């Protein structure tokens, strides 16, 4: 599995000032650190613990996560589309991995 592949979905046509739903998915195993292999070895914790959402230069949403978020985390939230700017989502995991993706929001 490729770790850190991101998909962001926003509506196709956006009116200026409209509150739009944003959906994002990232591939990540999200290991809890509690699971064990068959021979009793603990699988080390490996999960995304920090998510930042930027709209232009402004940080609009931030998540503090623990291992209790499901594998391949899906998030959905709203955004007030009042300017033409990129929407960037940055995921960071506990092993120092940084994954990011952006889409252009261009309201008409």
């Amino acid at each position, binding site marked *: 599995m490729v770790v850190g592949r991101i998909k962001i979905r926003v509506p196709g046509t956006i009116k200026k000032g409209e*509150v739009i739903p944003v959906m994002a998915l990232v591939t990540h195993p999200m290991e809890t650190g509690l699971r*064990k292999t068959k021979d009793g070895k603990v*699988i080390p914790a490996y999960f995304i613990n920090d998510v930042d959402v930027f709209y232009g230069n402004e940080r609009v949403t931030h998540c503090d996560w623990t291992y209790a*978020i499901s594998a391949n*985390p899906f998030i*959905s939230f709203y955004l*007030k589309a009042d300017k033409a700017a990129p929407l960037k989502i940055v995921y960071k995991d506990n092993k120092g991995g940084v994954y990011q993706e952006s889409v252009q929001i261009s309201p008409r």
Partner: protein
Amino acid sequence: MRQEDRGEQEGSGPALTRRAFIKSAGVAGAMFFMAGALPSLVKPALAAVKEENINEVLRRQFGSRKVSMSHVSINAPIIAENGAVVPLTITSDLPMNANDYVKKINVYADGNPEPYIAGISLTPANGKAMFALRIKMRKTSNVRAILETSTGKLYGAIRPVKVTIGGCGG
């Protein structure tokens, strides 16, 4: 009299089998319950997990501040077949303007080894106070959301979710 006696005896036939059936069903039920209860008892012993109580967590985070149980709704399945993926949608009708907005959404699952799952910071740029995510739950328990507004007020909601297969591993 005789007929009555016979009637009772005849009646006792099916009654006995019914009783026996209920008994055996009860035993099977108890075994099923044990099978369900055992993994959750054994799991914490196997993996040395720091167990936390939801009340301690809430006391640490909010002290004695009052949480109003209104304006928040949690949309979650009544029965989650797989505890590893429990979809939650937390919505609130609280305002999202520059002076008064939902600053943070805290998410908890009471039955998890660490009940605090996520803290989501929102800003007025979100337009609506909503966040959807998928969480892992070890066992059947309550899911809680506690929202903090920029004016310092706390709003919350509780929703029970039944879990058939736990999702924390171990």
